[in-house]
C-alpha cells in the first residue's frame, strides 16, 4: 500500500517526488523493495528549479547518500556530475555551494570521472581518422536525455565549473577552484554547505571585521547617472563630436534615458 502510494508520488514529479524520495529510500533500504529505474528517476529530478526550492538541502542530503555507493557505473555518475554542474550555472550562490563539494566528492570516489575535469591531449588526439582533434565544438553531453546511461556525459568536460571560478561571490569562486588543486582531501562534509541562504551568506559577509582599511576607487566619478545636459555646452563643437561624447558618456547605460 505504502509502496504504491510512494511510487505514485515519486512518479508525479516536482516537489512531491522529492518528498516521496525519503520514504521510498527507507523501503528500499530496510524492506528490500526492488525499485526499477531508481537512479533514472533521481536523475530526472535534477530539473531547472531544483536549486531554487527550499527543499534542496533535504534533497541533497539524500542524493549524497544515494550516490555514495562506489559500485555505480561511471556513465551514470558522470551524467549526474555533468547535470549538476550544468544546473550550477543558473543556481544562486547557496546552491552552487552545495553542488561543488558534492561533485568533488563524486569525482574523488570515482577516479575514472577525472576525465571530466582533466582530459589530457594524448587521449583526445587518437581519433578515429587519426587526425589530431582536440576541440569539441559541441558539448557531447545531451541535457534532455532522460536516461543517465545514454547522456554521453563522460565525453564532456565541466566547463561550467571553470566558469564558476569567476563567480562574483569570492567564496564561491574560491570553492570552485578546488578542482584546480590536487585532490588531497578525502571528501568534503556536505553538511557544512547545505544550509545556506542569501540571508546567511549576507550576514557572513557583513559581519566580517575588516582587517585593514577598505580599498578605494581612484578614478573620480563624473556623474551618478549620465545626463545629456551634463556636458559642457559652452564650447562650440559640431554635432558629430557631440554625439561621440554623448555615446562615450552614455556607455553602459544606453537603455535608459535620464
Amino acid at each position, binding site marked *: 500500500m505504502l509502496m504504491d502510494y510512494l511510487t505514485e508520488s515519486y512518479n508525479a514529479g516536482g516537489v512531491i517526488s522529492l518528498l516521496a524520495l525519503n520514504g521510498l529510500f527507507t523501503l528500499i533500504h530496510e524492506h528490500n523493495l526492488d525499485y526499477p529505474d531508481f537512479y533514472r528517476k533521481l536523475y530526472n529530478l535534477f530539473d531547472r528549479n531544483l536549486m531554487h526550492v527550499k527543499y534542496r538541502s533535504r534533497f541533497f542530503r539524500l542524493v549524497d547518500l544515494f550516490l555514495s555507493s562506489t559500485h555505480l557505473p561511471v556513465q551514470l555518475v558522470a551524467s549526474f556530475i555533468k547535470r549538476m554542474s550544468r544546473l550550477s550555472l543558473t543556481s544562486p550562490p547557496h546552491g552552487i555551494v552545495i553542488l561543488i563539494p558534492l561533485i568533488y566528492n563524486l569525482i574523488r570516489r570515482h577516479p575514472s570521472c577525472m576525465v571530466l575535469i582533466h582530459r589530457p591531449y594524448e587521449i583526445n588526439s587518437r581519433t578515429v581518422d587519426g587526425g589530431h582533434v582536440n*576541440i569539441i565544438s559541441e558539448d557531447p553531453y545531451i541535457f534532455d536525455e532522460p536516461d543517465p546511461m545514454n547522456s554521453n556525459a563522460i565525453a564532456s568536460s565541466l*566547463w561550467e565549473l571553470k566558469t564558476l571560478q*569567476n563567480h562574483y561571490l569570492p567564496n564561491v569562486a574560491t570553492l570552485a577552484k578546488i578542482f584546480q588543486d590536487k585532490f588531497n582531501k578525502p571528501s568534503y562534509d556536505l553538511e557544512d554547505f547545505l544550509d545556506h*541562504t542569501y540571508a546567511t*551568506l549576507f550576514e557572513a559577509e*557583513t559581519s566580517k571585521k575588516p582587517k585593514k582599511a577598505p*580599498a578605494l576607487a581612484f578614478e573620480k566619478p563624473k556623474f*551618478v547617472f549620465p545626463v545629456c545636459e551634463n556636458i559642457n555646452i559652452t564650447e562650440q563643437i559640431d554635432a558629430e563630436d557631440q554625439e561621440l561624447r554623448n555615446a562615450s558618456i552614455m556607455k553602459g547605460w544606453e*537603455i535608459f534615458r535620464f
Partner: protein
Amino acid sequence: MAKSGGSALKRLKSTLKEAKVIGHGSRSSMSKKQKRKGRPNDKNDTKDKLEFLKNQINPFELRVTKTKHNVLGRKVKGTQGRPGLKRQIGIEKRKQTLLVEMESRNKVGGLIDRRFGENDPTLSLEEKMLERFAREKKQRHSKSSLFNLEDDDLTHYGQSLALIDDFDEPDLSLNEEEDAGIIDHDTVDKGHFGGFEEDEQNNDESEHKQKSKTEVMKEVIAKSKMYKYERQLVKEEDERVCNELDNDLDEIRNLISLPKSGVVPLPTQEAAFRNKSVSNGSASKKALNISNKDDAYDRYVRELALDRRTRPTDRIKSEEEIALEEKEKLEKLEIARKRRMEGLDPESDDDSAKRKKQKRTSMADDPDYDHISEDDDNHYNLGKGISLRDDAAIEQAQDEDTSDDEDGDENDEDEDDDVSDDYYSDLDLEASDDNQILSDDNNDTSIPITESDHDTIDLSSDVLPTNSKNLAVKHGIAKTKDKCELAYTFPCPTTLAEFLKILQDVEDEDVHVVVHRIRVLHHIKLSVENRVKLEKFFPVLMDYVLHRVQENPVPILLINKLVCHIFDLVQQVPESATDYFVSKIVTMENNLTKRLLSSGLKKSKSMFPTISEFILLRILSQVFPTSDFHHPVVTPALLLMAQYLAQCPLSNGLDLVSGLLLCNLMHEYQILSKRIIPEALNFLFIALVYLAPQGTFNSMESIPGIFPLSSKFVPTLQIKETTFVDDANPLDFSQFSSVMNGNGNINVFDNDLFRLSALMATLHLVENFAKMYNCTPAFSELFEPASKIIDTYPLDKFSSTIKIKIASIRETLERLQKFSKKSRKPLELQHHRPIPLPTYIPKFQENFSIDKHYDPDRERAKLNKLKAQYKKERKGAIRELRKDSKCIAHHNIRKGKEKDTLYKKRINSIMGILESEQGEKKAYEKAKKYGKI
C-alpha cells in the same frame, strides 16, 4: 730484544748484554787504555743506552685489542694501548696540579721568588750569585743619571736651554689681544723657538754681527707698531663706508623690495624696515645722535639674524614631470587593483611563494597528509549557515501548527493547503521560506513581527520624518525668492536637519558650492577635530542625496555634482564611510527580508529597491573598486542585488524596469573583473520569456534553458499587439522614478510601447553581458537559452526596424557562441605533479659507513651530534673526577701513614726513654736494696 722465554731478570740481562751495557764490549770490560783513548763521553753514552732501554716497550705494559679481520692499509685507532704509562702520566699530572693546589689551599698570600735563576736548577749557587751581582751593578749604572741635573745640560731642539734668555723674548712686550699673528716672518724665523741657532749662524756669517739682541728687539717692536697703525687706518675706512651704506639703506631697500613686490614680506622683516626707515627719516630731519641710530641698526641686524632663512623649495615641476608622476601613480593603483581582483594582497609580491609553501605542506609523504585542517570552522568562509538551533526552532514551529504531519518534513505553516500541490509556486515562496527561518529566529528573541510592511525602514526617512512632498514645497518657496548672495562660511552640519536648514535659501545649482565651502572650511588638514566633523558630515551629505532623490523629478544634475564631493569625502574618511555604506546595505537587506516575509499576506507592494537605494548602490560602485575579489562593501552589495534579482517576484512593468536597472548596475560593477552573475542572466532570460509576444510559449516544456521559471506568466508583461509600434525608445528614468516615488501612474508601464522598449532594453543587456562573458568556457551553455528564446520569437509580427534589431542581436549571440565553441578545449585542470605514494623501500647509501650519520633531517642530526658530544664529555668529566678523588685519597693515605709512622717513632723513642729510665730506676732500687742497704 730477546724474545725467548725465561724470567724477567734473565731477559733484562740479555737485553743489557745486547745493548753492550754489560758483558763484552761494555765499558767496564774495556782496558784503561782504550778508555782513555776512545770515546770521551762514554759515560753519557751508557746513560743514553739505559734510557733508551727503559723507554723500550715492555710487552707486559702493552695492551693489544685483537682485530678480527685485518684490512690492509687501514689504520684503526686504539688497537694498542699502554694503560700503565697512561696512568703514570695522569698521576704525574695530578701531582703537579691537583696536589699542589691541595697543598696550597687555605693558604692566602705568599711570596713569589723572582730572584734570578732561583727556579733554574741548572745553575749552581756561585753562578747564580755572580749573575745576580752583575745585574744589580748594571741596573744601578743605567738608572744613576735620571735625576742628576748636574752632569747633563737640558736641551731644546738640540740646543742647550742655558743659552736662551727667557726675559729677552721679543713677544712679551706686545699687546696680546691685538697681535695674534702679526709678527712678521723674519721675526718668527729668527726669534721663535728653534730659530736661534740659525740666527746665531747668520750673525756669525753676516756683517751685522755686531747687532746686539736689544737692537733686534727694538726693530721688531717698531715694525709691529707700524702694522698696528696701518690696521687702524683700514678700520676707519671700513667704518666710513658702513656709515655711507647706512645712509643709503632706504634706496637699497627700494631696490630689494621692488622685484619681490608679489611676495608678502615676513612681518618681522617689514617691521624692521619700517623701523629703519622711520629712524632714518628722523635722523635726517632732526639729526638724532648716532648712538640711537646704531641701536636701531643693531636691533634690525639681530632681527634679521633671528629671522628664519628662506630655504630653497622644491623645484617647480614641469608639466611633463607632473604628467609622468600622475601616470606612474595611476599605474601603481591599477596594478594594485588588478592584484585585488585576483584576490591577492595588493602590497606583497611574495604571495605566490607563500602559496607554494602552503601547497608543499600537503604532500602525500607528509605525516598529516590525510588530515583535514580543523581550523576552518567557518565552513569555508561561508558563514554559519542555518544552525541547528534554527532548525529546531523551525521544527518546533511546524510541530505547533502541523502536528498531524508525521514526516515532519512536509511544509511550512503558510502554505500547506493550497501550495503544496503546486510545486512551482514554491519558487516564489522559497524566498519567503528563507526568511521565514529568520523570522522564526526573531520570534525566539521575542521581537514580534506584525504588519512588517510598516516596519520597513526607509533609507532616509529614519533620519528625517518630513516627507518628500513637504520638502519639495519648501524648495519651491526657496526658488521663488530672489537669488541672494551665498555666504562664505558655514558650520559643519552634524544632522540632516541642520544641513537642510543651511540649504533652506540655497538654490539647487549652488548646493554643491555650499558643500564645497563646507569641505574647504573643515578640511581634514586644518585641524584635528575636522576629521570627526567630516565623519559626521559624510552621512549627512549621503542622507541628503538619498533624501533628495525621492523628490519628483529626481534632481540628477545636482546629484551628479554632489557625487564628486562624496567621492572626495570618502577618500578623506574611508573607515567611517565604509561603516556607513555597510550599515545602509544591511538596512536594505533587512527591509528586503521583511518585505519578502510579508509578501505572503499582501502582494501589492513592489519588492525591488527604491530610487534612493538604487542611487546608493550606484554611488557605492563609484566610490569603491567593484572589481576586487573581495571587498567589505562591494561584495555584500553584490549579494544583495543578486538576491533582489533572484527572489523578488516580477509582477509588473515597474518591477521589470527595476530589475533591468539592477542588471545594468551589476553589469557596470563587473565590467572590469567580468565575474559571472547567474542571477542577472536568469532575470534577463525570465524577462525575455515574460515579454514574449502572446502565444509564443504555450507550455512550460517548450521554454528552453535551465533557468528557474515559475509556471505563472505575468499577463501584463506579454506583448500583445506588435505591429503598431514602430520603434522602441530607451526606458525613461524620470518616468520610472516618478512612479517609484509614488507620483506617477503605474499604467504607463502597461502599454505595448513600453513592453517593446523593455524587450529591446533586455536584449541589449543580454548582448552586453554576452560581450562581457565571451571568454568564459561555458559561454554557450550560459547564453544558449537566450538565443533559443529569440529564435522562437515570431519575428514576422514585429515591425521592420525592431525586427532588424532583434535579428542583429541574435546574430551577435550566435557568432559569439560559435566562436566560443570553436576555441573550447577539454578541461585540463589537473596538471599537477602526480601525488607520490608513500614508499617503504629502504634508502640505499653508497659508500655507507657505520660511523657516519645519515640523517636527512639536518636539525635532528645536529641535535644528535650535540647529545653524543655531551654524553662523551660527561663521561670523561666523571672519569677525571674519579681519578682526582682517587689521587687525593692516595695522597691522604700516604700522608696519614707518614704521620702514623712519625708518631710511632716518637712514641717509641719516648717509650725507650721511659723504659730506660724505668730500668735505671729499678736498677737503682735493686742496688739500693741489695748493695747499699
